[in-house]
């Protein structure tokens, strides 16, 4: 098309239309490719591993029975991790040598060793000194402590990301350091780290599969158990994978919805006047 023969507004409309056309063509291609990938995987499975509807019908509900436990373990662990991370971040930022040393050791040690080792330590190590814990407690304890160490650094960075002028304005108004932290710095730091907590929760959903090693009957344990017994591990692991996958998609969607709502909430509150 010859741009010179168009008026300015016609040109703008034509450009916008062409942009739209290009975008919709792109997203069509994207969807086609995604569908093709899924179809290919589906066909591969159907052709090579004669899918038995009866086996699927019995295995899938059994494995699905672990979903609630997986979610409960992940939820409790992320809660424990959040509490530990708040304490850890305060310790890492503390001028007290004692608090700082304890928090620094915690972060260093729990980030510096494998999560699987930590899970086993709770389950296999502690009984040797007479501490026998329920597998559920082992899983939540190990996951919570480990994620707490990572989140400590996250929270510390979140607190430090709040401009120093905020603390100064608060104490200049006569607030004590503690009040300034609680009422001015912490709420802003929380906003900063909230998306990251969501990401960690989704990662936790998947890492909670390690709880299967301490006999917790969550998704992966069930998949392995029934798969070994029937010599159909490939099928059961795929089923478990699909469940994890759906859960992470669902929670990611929930997370972005929450974030959008929070942003919208800010705007609405602001407009209310």
């Amino acid at each position, binding site marked *: 098309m010859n741009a010179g023969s168009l008026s300015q507004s016609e040109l703008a409309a034509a450009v916008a239309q062409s942009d739209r056309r290009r975008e919709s063509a792109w997203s069509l291609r994207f969807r086609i490719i995604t569908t093709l990938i899924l179809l290919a995987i589906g066909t591969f499975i159907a052709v090579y591993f004669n899918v038995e509807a009866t086996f699927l019908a019995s295995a899938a509900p059994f494995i699905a029975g672990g979903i609630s436990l997986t979610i409960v373990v992940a939820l409790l662990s992320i809660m424990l991790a959040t509490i530990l991370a708040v304490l850890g971040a305060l310790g890492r930022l503390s001028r007290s040598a004692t608090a700082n040393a304890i928090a620094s050791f915690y972060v260093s040690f729990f980030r510096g060793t494998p999560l699987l080792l930590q899970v086993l330590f709770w389950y296999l190590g502690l009984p040797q000194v007479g501490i026998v814990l329920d597998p559920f407690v082992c899983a939540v304890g190990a996951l919570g402590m480990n994620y707490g160490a990572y989140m400590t650094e996250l929270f510390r960075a979140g607190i430090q990301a709040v401009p120093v002028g905020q603390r100064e304005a608060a104490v200049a*108004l006569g607030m004590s350091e503690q009040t300034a932290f609680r009422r001015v710095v912490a709420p802003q730091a929380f906003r900063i780290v909230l998306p990251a907590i969501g990401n960690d929760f989704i990662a936790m959903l998947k890492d909670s599969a390690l709880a299967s090693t301490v006999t917790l009957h969550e998704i992966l344990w069930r998949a392995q158990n029934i798969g070994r017994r029937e010599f159909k591990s490939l099928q059961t692991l795929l089923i478990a994978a699909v469940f994890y996958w759906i859960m992470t998609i669902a929670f990611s969607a929930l997370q972005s919805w929450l974030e959008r709502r929070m942003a919208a909430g800010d705007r609405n*509150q*602001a407009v209310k*006047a």
Partner: protein
Amino acid sequence: MSKPIDLRGAAEPHQLHPAEKPGVLVKAGAGPVLQATRIAKWFGDNHVLRGASITVWPGETVCILGRSGSGKSTFLRSLNFLEDPTDGRVEIDGVVVNADPFHTEGKDRAERIRELRMRAGMVFQEFNLFPHLSVIGNCIEAPILVKGMARKEAEAIAEKYLEKVGLLDKRDEYPSRLSGGQRQRVAIARALTMQPKVLLFDEPTSALDPTLVGEVLKVMADLAHEGRTMIVVTHEMDFAHEAADRVYYMDQGEFVEVGPPEQVIDAPQDQRTRDFLARFRTLGTKK
């Protein structure tokens, strides 16, 4: 632990500069509301403040001028101990805090500094409004938390001051939706809601778009004329000329010239003040 060392500034009595006389709005017989005595500050090897003193009577507006890096902001921030001075003494409305660089972490001292800060409202260059609170929330947060004021009462006071700065209609807005000039006016209302004895302004218009400077200066001039006690660190010569009872010129951590604006700005005696003001004229300031 060593014994507390007698510091020079804290040990010697406050002395008036010959040019420090109560301004026109000061009630007869009123004593000073703020005295800062020989404030010194070292940042490592850097001697930022070299024993600067200031006396302010209730109802006065004083301006502190000086090049950037001369120590004027550090001096202002020492008055409410946002910077802990190395030496010296600050008294505001009867509350005294001495510099005590060897014992900065005591609980009693923190409490005394808090008492001091409650009497000195501060307005920052970067506004520092609380972004998670509405305009009214920004104003009432400290009165409720610090003074234990009832929400209703705090809101009534805040609304009075928001009206004064012309932003009562923005009462429930969030800071992110305000212009820079509006934000700074809210910051002034927030400081006023604590009903301080003296307001400290740290270059309040330096971060503003030039077209927004006027609305903030107008609010400040109104406050000055109605007898608020104000200490203003600024580069706004016209404001200093119009609103100040006294002008202090700081150079390398010392006040080298003190006097009424007609003297310090129009007919400076000190060579350093002259050089500074000459630069301003070349930048196009008329006065």
